[in-house]
């Protein structure tokens, strides 16, 4: 029983990081219609920038903030300089997937070339351990959960209640109609890349804060889990991605404790297959995946 509760605690931390990443990934697809498979590499890039700062003496929290800014700037630039170019030429969904894979490969190999095939570790001050209701979590893990909760709540408030958030959902629903209402869709899409890019950077830094060490492929290894969470929740549905992250995160950590740590992704994907069999559109998605719509 203790082991289960303990694993559940780890699962919550994984789920928190996963939620930040999956929501950002699904937001990009839902609003801009680009399935950005370079997402994992941007996470790694931000984690690495954070690492350089941290190694130079900055705190992990400063690394987190800088990672977020780097993710926002890099994602927006990536869209402006590369993705938008192909979209304007009429490249369709699957063509864009290939473009994003190309970007991912270029980025990963560039990172590998620049940083070398090493394991990098953040220097984190010794953490206090908290115990309650059987859960054992370090202060750092609690802080990561806190970051995720704040990020999700902020995003929720923005999408539901602000003028920009509604314009984002309107653009996702129908870009042409949004434009005829006076919404500058291309500006809205820039902002989506900035916001989702910041979340991507936060996910990258928190991911490596929570692991012993990372390499140039840590982000792309995590991407398959992100995609699993996004699909379980329903692609393009941010609330679905949050739910998917919780399910995938907790399932994989519990499986890691009870079965074998190296098999945790096996369980995450088994869950994915089961969900897809029962609800092909995911938990929240309403079978509008091809349209890529944010609810």
């Amino acid at each position: 029983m203790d082991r289960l509760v303990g694993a559940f605690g780890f699962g919550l931390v994984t789920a928190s990081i996963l939620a930040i990443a999956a929501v950002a990934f699904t937001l990009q697809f839902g609003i801009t219609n680009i399935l950005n498979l370079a997402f994992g590499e941007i996470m790694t890039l931000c984690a690495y920038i954070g690492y350089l700062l941290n190694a130079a003496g900055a705190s992990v929290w400063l690394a987190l903030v800088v990672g977020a800014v780097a993710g926002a700037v890099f994602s927006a630039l990536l869209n402006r300089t590369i993705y938008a170019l192909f979209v304007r030429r009429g490249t369709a969904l699957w063509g864009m997937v290939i473009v994003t894979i190309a970007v991912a490969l270029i980025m990963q190999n560039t990172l590998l070339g620049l940083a070398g095939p090493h394991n990098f570790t953040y220097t984190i001050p010794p953490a206090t351990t908290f115990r309650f209701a059987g859960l054992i979590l370090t202060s750092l893990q609690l802080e990561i959960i806190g970051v995720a909760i704040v990020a999700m709540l902020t995003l929720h408030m923005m999408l539901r209640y602000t003028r920009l958030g509604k314009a984002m959902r309107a653009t996702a629903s129908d870009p042409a109609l949004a434009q005829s209402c006076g919404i500058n869709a291309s500006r809205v899409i820039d902002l989506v890349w900035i916001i989702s890019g910041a979340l991507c950077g936060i996910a990258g830094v928190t991911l490596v804060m929570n692991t012993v060490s990372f390499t140039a492929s840590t982000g792309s290894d995590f991407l398959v889990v992100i995609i699993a969470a996004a699909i379980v929740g329903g692609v393009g549905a941010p609330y679905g991605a949050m739910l998917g992250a919780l399910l995938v995160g907790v399932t994989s950590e519990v499986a890691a404790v009870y079965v074998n740590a190296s098999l945790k992704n096996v369980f995450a994907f088994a869950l994915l297959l089961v969900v897809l069999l029962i609800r092909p559109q995911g938990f929240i998605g309403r079978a509008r995946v091809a349209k890529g719509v944010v609810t």
Partner: protein
Amino acid sequence: MHTSATDERRRPPPQLVVDGLTAGYGGATVVDDVSFTVGPGEVVALLGPNGAGKSTVLKAMVGQARITAGSVLLGGIDITSVRPHLLAGMGCGYVPQYRDVFDELTVRENLEMGGYLLGKEAIAKRIDDAMEVFPALAGMMDRPARKLSGGEHKMLAIARVMMSRPTLMALDEPTANLAPILGRRLLDEQIRAVVRSGAAVLLVEQRAAAALSVADWAYLLVAGRVVRSGHPAELRAQADFAEVFLGGGDATTAARNTSDVRA
């Protein structure tokens, strides 16, 4: 083209002037050298069989089809190559034939998007006004638009465009998916309300009889060209027009029958 010069002179000075519009998609030309005008407070019907290019005329006006020749003037300002998202601010309101509301947004959010360029207070006030014109919407403000019935859906689409108080309202077959009675009421009551606000209304319809009953002027588009225009009474009186477009016959076969009318 048959046009009565005396009637034409009684029309108000135009708010919308479409002159020699040639437009289509990619390399294909769908509408060719189309010219018409709509005055403030006027309902102008653009009639024609399915596939004639009516929707393409509207899409070209709002920047969703490619214009290769001609011009569109709104209130004397050339909007031919204005970027689409700037048109709303220039007084252009457009209700597309399909996908005319944001399905994922609630009724209230749809109206808010219609008033996207307005301040908070103006939006609140105009939502109240919209609920007066469309009382049926008042009880469903927080419902997602995709859950509305056909009639409610169209009302929302029109209410959404009215939020910005456009000086031109282009409506693409607003009655197409409605029961005849509902369609009639929409034209007789709500469209009339728009006109009273002084807007120029361009009404695309396949159902000629209903459209002519509210229109002040009408143009007939066949195979991408305006083949005749006139006062509704005058068009109704033309035996061949009445037979083909008002006789309840199939408008698509009518297209072929009318091609000889091109003068």
